[in-house]
């Protein structure tokens, strides 16, 4: 299968200032800048975001509990350490969410560092991604990117009181 597609970017979204960053889906784009614009169009058509991240899909390293149980623990190699964001998926239906960050010299050792740093977390799988691979929405652009959706209340199903409208119709029918 020849792959002439644009690269895949993972999209992460933060719904409120006190909410964790969660994985939402993917977009295809020729570069991170357009990935960000695509992500905004696809995932933020409703007022549920204060920040968006896009990360090249191949920059994310995944380790499941099953894989961890099988693998021998890799020791921390001596080498140049960089910062990684740590994510975990905690339930079958849940989205992967941010746990914290660690410094490590490889993705494999970053997972080990995460297990040591967050002993009370037991995700079904871990994701680690180098902070340098993440492109984040600019806080100065948050208003133009996310605020407009807040006033489009007609996208909310609660705007349409069809249940009470039907009840009124039936009551009218009974009287008539």
């Amino acid at each position, binding site marked *: *299968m020849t*792959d*002439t*597609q*644009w690269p*895949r970017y993972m999209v992460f979204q933060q719904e409120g200032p006190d909410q964790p960053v969660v994985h939402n*889906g*993917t*977009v*295809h*784009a*020729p*570069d991170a*800048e*357009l990935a960000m614009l695509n992500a905004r*169009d*696809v*995932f933020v*058509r*409703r007022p549920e975001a204060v920040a968006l991240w896009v990360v090249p899909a191949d920059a994310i390293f*995944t380790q*499941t509990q099953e894989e961890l149980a099988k693998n021998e623990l890799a020791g921390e190699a001596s080498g140049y350490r960089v910062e990684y964001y740590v994510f975990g998926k905690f339930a*079958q*239906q849940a*989205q992967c969410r941010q746990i914290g960050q660690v410094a490590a010299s490889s993705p494999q050792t970053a997972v080990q560092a995460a297990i040591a740093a967050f002993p009370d977390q037991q995700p079904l799988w871990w994701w680690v991604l180098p902070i340098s691979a993440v492109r984040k929405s600019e806080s100065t652009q948050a208003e133009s990117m996310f605020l407009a959706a807040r006033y*489009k209340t*007609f*996208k*909310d*199903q609660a*705007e*349409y*009181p*069809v249940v009470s*409208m*039907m009840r009124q*119709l*039936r009551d009218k*029918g009974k009287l008539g």
Partner: protein
Amino acid sequence: MYGADVEQIAIQLNEDPQKLADFEARIARGEKIEPGDWMPAEYRRQLIRMISQHAHSEVVGMLPEGAWITKAPSLRRKLILLAKVQDEAGHGQYLYHAAETLGATREEMLDALLDGKAKYSSIFNYHTTTWADNGAIGWLVDGAAILNQTMLARCSYGPYSRAMVRICMEENFHRKQGQEMIILYSQGTPAQRAMVQDAITRWWWPTLMMFGPHDADSPNSGVLIRWGIKTRTNDELRQEFINQLVPDLQACGIVLPDPDLHYDEASKNWRTGPIDWDEFWAVLKGNGPANAERMAARRQAHADGQWVREAAAAYAAKSQIQ
């Protein structure tokens, strides 16, 4: 075949019996199957078929309503319709992404659609001839889609199920804006009432066909239900839809185009007359009222976007050099 035990099925599908048994046990425990997990080739094939058809339906589904954006009767209705059509584009994206997690590429899925090889929901091959059709599509067509999608939100494949949860939330806005429109017009001027009656008359039967053939004639249902992709049959979903819609449409004073429609006290179900399956198969095979027009519009849109894709790729290449 799919009522058979796991060993027989493993032989027929040429799968490892132990792996297949473990896989089916996971589904029985209510676990979600995720992209990297082992799955039978037939499970993967069926999911790619369903999810890509579903994605195509969202994309082609933009066309019948999109035609009315410039003709909406008020600014409010125009904003609603714009947002709705934009949602359908987004739903297509979520679904293509879900299919990609199974190894299908965007390119081959789009090619299959543009070459006329891929199916999409037959309902979008009917014309929207009056403004009230947008209300009928919202209440009937999106209402029928929601029943199917609510079931799929519980399906055994994780990415498909998560995409469906999101889509269902947004589709409820689509359904309710349509229902609101039909209720209001059904109580409006004589011209509005006639327009609504005409729209429901034309969309009623095609909507009932959306649930697919009767269970006895539905070749994929067995395996889809066995592996937790579908948890209810076409006829079950169709009956639930009919039971929901008939009393509400009648309360609006709308007459349904079915002389055989009656309430069956014994089963507490509304019973319709026979569905014209010849029409269903004809539309599905490409001979519906608008098939050619829809495909022409899709190909045109794809061709019109070519320069945008080229420009974006050239810009990315240039930025990398700098």
